[in-house]
């Protein structure tokens, strides 16, 4: 049985006060809070098992290696990956997406990687609702290779203009990269439609699942994409660890991203051969403790059940959309109905700047984010400088949403 009050007790930070009132944390899309078990696993790792991985033959070294590789197994099961060696640890989503973009341009000069080549006449497609992390690496790849950078626009409700997908994704498209759930709008994209089109034209697909992995069951096999990226700190895990999942047959043929220790097979002064995936893409000492912590977060979520998490958050979303619709002069930026949308709600209030709204909410103990949420094109699309964004997680309650609504009304009274 999903009981939010029981879950809240697992998160020590939720019982603190700010400005003399209880914290109402509505910024989980930015980063989630961490349950006690995750904090304990970090302490336990450093207190009892700390050593470098894959190099030390002593007891601590093998314990650390087993814990680190055990975390990889947990991630693989969590996303239903066909193989554990398809899971690459990165420092966050941004690095995971850059890893794909850089290995693709490295492929330009790698014998045997011809099928990955991107060049003049080719194009790379993203959507207008992407986080900068899924825009900039592709703009840079386009610059390095001479390919064209394109995007699929969004409509007034914050949904992709599906009628333009076939035009933007064409025979010369090499990569289609898109967000599963938008961090600025809450929109959940129709993965199947996008992947089907990309497959039909032979393009690689990259899904940014940063905002979906924490909120719904994620199954890379049913998503059908070639690469899926997400970040640990939004998934109730520590900062400093992220994941790139990729199809093995692609990873096996891709050249490295960064060079260094652990990513090699043999090195001599005339050249180097590279380790098999995933180690080929993990140069240097990895984020061992953080990966272990992420594994613990995944155990924690699995015990609750991701379908339970999804149901809880769907209820919160419907509740919040209804409640916010009652506030005069408040405009939701993004889908106004709970269909195909996640528990992240951006809004503007007539006559009051989002930075004032969020600062005044903070004075009432309510943590929300204000700004362009690293998705500036979304703000440009709607002609606004910024939005205020409330985002929910497993520990969010409907009474916190009531507090938010009351808080917003107070802010309006101050400015009236």
């Amino acid at each position, binding site marked *: 049985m999903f009981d939010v009050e029981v879950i809240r007790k697992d998160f020590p930070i939720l019982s603190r006060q700010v400005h003399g009132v209880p914290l109402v944390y509505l910024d989980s899309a930015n980063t989630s809070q961490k349950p006690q078990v995750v904090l304990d696993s970090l302490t336990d790792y450093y207190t009892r098992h700390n050593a470098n991985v894959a190099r030390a033959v002593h007891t601590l070294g093998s314990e650390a290696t087993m814990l680190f590789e055990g975390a990889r197994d947990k991630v693989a099961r969590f996303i239903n990956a066909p193989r554990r060696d398809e899971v690459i640890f990165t420092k966050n989503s941004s690095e995971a997406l850059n890893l794909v973009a850089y290995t693709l341009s490295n492929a330009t000069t790698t014998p045997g990687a011809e099928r990955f080549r991107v060049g003049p006449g080719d194009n790379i497609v993203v959507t207008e609702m992407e986080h900068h992390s899924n825009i900039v690496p592709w703009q840079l790849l386009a610059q390095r290779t001479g390919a064209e950078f394109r995007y699929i626009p969004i409509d007034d409700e914050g949904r992709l203009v599906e009628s333009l997908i076939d035009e933007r994704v064409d025979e010369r498209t090499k990569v289609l990269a898109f967000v599963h759930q938008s961090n600025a709008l809450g929109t959940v994209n129709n993965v199947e439609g996008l992947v089907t089109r990309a497959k039909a034209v032979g393009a690689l697909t990259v899904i940014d699942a940063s905002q979906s992995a924490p909120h719904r069951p994620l199954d890379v096999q049913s998503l059908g994409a070639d690469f899926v990226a997400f970040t640990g700190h939004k998934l109730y895990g520590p900062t400093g660890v992220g994941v790139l999942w990729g199809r093995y047959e692609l990873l096996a043929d891709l050249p490295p991203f960064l060079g260094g220790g652990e990513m090699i097979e043999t090195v001599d002064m005339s050249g180097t051969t590279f380790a098999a995936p995933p180690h080929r893409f993990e140069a240097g000492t990895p984020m061992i403790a953080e990966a272990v912590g992420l594994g613990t977060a995944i155990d924690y979520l699995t015990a609750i059940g991701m379908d339970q998490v999804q149901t809880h958050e769907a209820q919160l979303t419907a509740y919040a959309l209804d409640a916010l619709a009652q506030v005069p002069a408040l405009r939701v930026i993004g889908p106004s109905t709970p269909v195909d949308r996640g528990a992240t709600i951006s809004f503007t209030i007539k006559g*009051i700047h989002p*930075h*004032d709204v969020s*600062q*005044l909410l903070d*004075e009432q103990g309510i943590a929300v984010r204000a700004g362009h949420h690293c998705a500036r094109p979304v703000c440009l699309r709607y002609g606004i*400088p910024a939005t205020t964004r409330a985002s929910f997680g497993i520990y969010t309650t409907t009474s916190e949403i009531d507090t938010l609504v009351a808080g917003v009304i*107070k802010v309006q009274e*101050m*400015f009236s």
Partner: protein
Amino acid sequence: MSVNMDSMYQQIILDHYKHPNHRGELADFDAEVHHVNPTCGDEVTLRIRVADGEIADLGWTGEGCSISQASTSVMSDLVVGSSVTDALQLQEKFLQLMQSQGHNDLAEDETEALEDAIAFEGVSKYPARVKCALLGWMAMKSAVASATGAGDKP
């Protein structure tokens, strides 16, 4: 809602935001500047007229968060009619206040000289908002520089 005492949003700030002073375009001016604060997207366009070493008049237009708009209004009240030297000194003091991280270390007479601008002291605790409070003051400083530097009218 009554404003709590340690709120960044003192009543003076809200009042200036709702009823800004010296807002509007000057027809007769010596310099015009346009300043932007990328964090909040605040903007201010400021025109200034300088005569006999005094800020004879100042007018501004802009949009953005309440802190930036109210601060520009307060600044205008303080500097219009004062000597350029005094205005620039006041700007220095305000900058120092904003860099104080919530610990005003100005002398008592310096604090008094800032009049209503002292209401922004609380902003200095929020690094992300300091730029908002400084926007109008920085614009005034560069407008004065261009009005007095080149000396010729645009």
